[in-house]
């Protein structure tokens, strides 16, 4: 690991240089909010963003991705990943990417995710603005982000760039970096520590206590029914979640009616037909028919089911689901704190 410093005045030239070298994705303004998008100019980059509308996983796990394309001659995988830089990822989203990295590579290695992931250099960045529903400081607090190649922290007069991998180190040649001083490193550490004190929401208990109590609450049907009473089953909480990775697969024809594609789309366990099977003659079996059972399944996934595998909860405290939920019932902090208090 090396730590370097770049002056604010030189930063735009650095971003310009990496843009010229290959695709760079970073947070940009989208009306009053922010989204990860391909950067055309360094001015577009908004490292002061609070949280992106969709998590950066969309680069590796796009909302729609062709798994194969077919025509009269046969079929093939259209996978052509390109080397790219993903710049400005907050640490909670790096933690989420660490989770999807594991989940897509374990047991059956999913090339469609991993190819895009392995060709990406991730530059994390410190959180300059805390979003209104964030609770990243109190969830899975002992799990550290590890999938990034470099970490950028804004300090007085410039940025400290800590490079952690070969890929990260390869970025240094694009800018006027100099070795960071101890004082600069100390300041960067203080900046990153300070942001942990600024979350507007907070879980009141540790990971293991939460996991045990949420799991034990499974059969409290009255509670889940009450919590899910206003759920529209829209799946927004799933769609905006950086750790959700469920998908559906559909085939579609092109207009020629002979060629087409098999595509996977983001899916969400809150939607009504997620676990529904056709039995024939119009009959169906929906293994999670009630809203409450779907609502519960999401919380079980986030707070308990995957903990052993992931080494922590499948939630990173970004607050996207809390802010995105129309009925404002998806907030894991409120749900979990209520369960813990029950």
């Amino acid at each position, binding site marked *: 690991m090396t730590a370097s410093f770049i002056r604010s005045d030189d930063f735009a030239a650095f971003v310009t240089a990496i843009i010229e070298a290959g695709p760079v994705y970073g947070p940009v303004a989208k009306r009053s909010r922010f989204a990860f998008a391909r950067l055309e100019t360094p001015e577009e980059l908004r490292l002061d963003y609070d949280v992106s509308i969709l998590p950066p996983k969309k680069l590796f796990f796009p909302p729609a991705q062709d798994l194969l394309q077919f025509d009269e001659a046969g079929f093939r995988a259209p996978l052509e990943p390109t080397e790219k830089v993903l710049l400005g990822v907050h640490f909670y989203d790096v933690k989420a990417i660490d989770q999807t990295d594991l989940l897509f590579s374990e047991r059956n290695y999913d090339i469609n995710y991993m190819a895009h992931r392995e060709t990406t250099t991730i530059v994390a960045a410190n959180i300059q603005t805390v979003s209104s529903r964030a609770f990243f400081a109190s969830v899975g607090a002992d799990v550290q982000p590890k*999938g990034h190649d470099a970490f950028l922290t804004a300090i007085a007069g410039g940025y400290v760039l800590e490079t952690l991998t070969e890929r990260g180190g390869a970025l240094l040649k694009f800018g006027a970096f100099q070795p960071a001083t101890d004082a600069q490193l100390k300041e960067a550490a203080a900046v990153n520590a300070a942001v942990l004190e600024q979350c507007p929401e907070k879980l009141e208990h540790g990971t293991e206590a939460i996991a045990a109590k949420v799991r034990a609450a499974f059969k409290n049907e009255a509670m889940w029914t009450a919590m899910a009473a206003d759920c529209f089953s829209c799946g927004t909480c799933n769609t905006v979640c950086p750790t959700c*990775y469920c*998908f559906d*697969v559909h*085939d579609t024809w092109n207009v020629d009616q002979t060629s087409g594609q098999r595509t996977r789309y983001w899916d969400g*366990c809150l939607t009504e037909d997620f676990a529904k099977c056709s039995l024939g003659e119009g009959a169906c079996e929906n*293994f999670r028919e009630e809203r409450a059972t779907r609502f519960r399944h999401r919380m079980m996934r986030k707070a308990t089911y995957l903990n052993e595998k992931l080494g922590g909860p499948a939630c990173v405290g970004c607050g996207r689901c809390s802010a995105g939920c129309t009925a404002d019932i998806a907030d894991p902090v409120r749900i979990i704190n209520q369960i813990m208090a029950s």
Partner: protein
Amino acid sequence: MNHQCHWTEVENIFLPREATIVRSVQATPTETHFTLKMTDGQPIEYEPGQIVELSLFGYGEIPIGIASSPTRKNTFDLVVRSVGRVSGAVTALEKGQSVYVRGPLGRGFDLTKLRGQDVLIVAGGIGLCPTRSLIQYILDRRDEFKRFVLFYGAREPGLQLFTDDLTMWRTARDVEYCETVDKGDPSWSGNVGVITTLFPQVELTPETRAVICGPPIFYRFVIRELDMIGIPRENVFADLERRMKCGVGKCGHCQINDKYVCVDGPVFSFADVQGLEEAF
């Protein structure tokens, strides 16, 4: 990133292989029994109880339990019930046409736990299809197993599957076969009643290994019978069905609590799933 593989060195788990339909029989008004052969001549290597994702380009993929035993080489059987877009298109196909398969996928029956034992198979409805892979296996390697009892229940006589097999099993000496239908018709002289009405007809010991597969409601009633015989639940193996979409433990649709049916199952020891609130 810390992991072992590199994407250029790994097989794409979503690419299927072509199979040719060598035989197609309309088994019931909604179910078609296909015999398939891999078009490239390389048979798929599978274990009884495993599944494949069956697909047709432009229509999609569906999970189907393999309905024949790996002891019968070169071809394999699938029974497809026409219920939707993919199954509707597949069941319209004829001999000589192609389908695509990915697999085998999932965990089948643990034969090490069945060999040398008395085996009871209880199949309800379309549950006879995946269990037929094991039935054939046992019949083909009969010496490896002790007593073999098979219960099969269908809704009505006209909905019975594998009628050629049933005819054989009724008189076979190497399987004690009992059958029932929920609702009889004038042609039916056999047992009428739900599957549990077969249990009093055969004396079973608590040492028996039981394999059960049927519609969701079936498990609740069959397990009661097995409990009454005194068969420990770790010796009961349930072949479960869910909406297995990707078949490789990613897409999430087939989850029962924290288990993925497509990779952790579809065959589970009852003891392993009885604590899962969403299982039965």
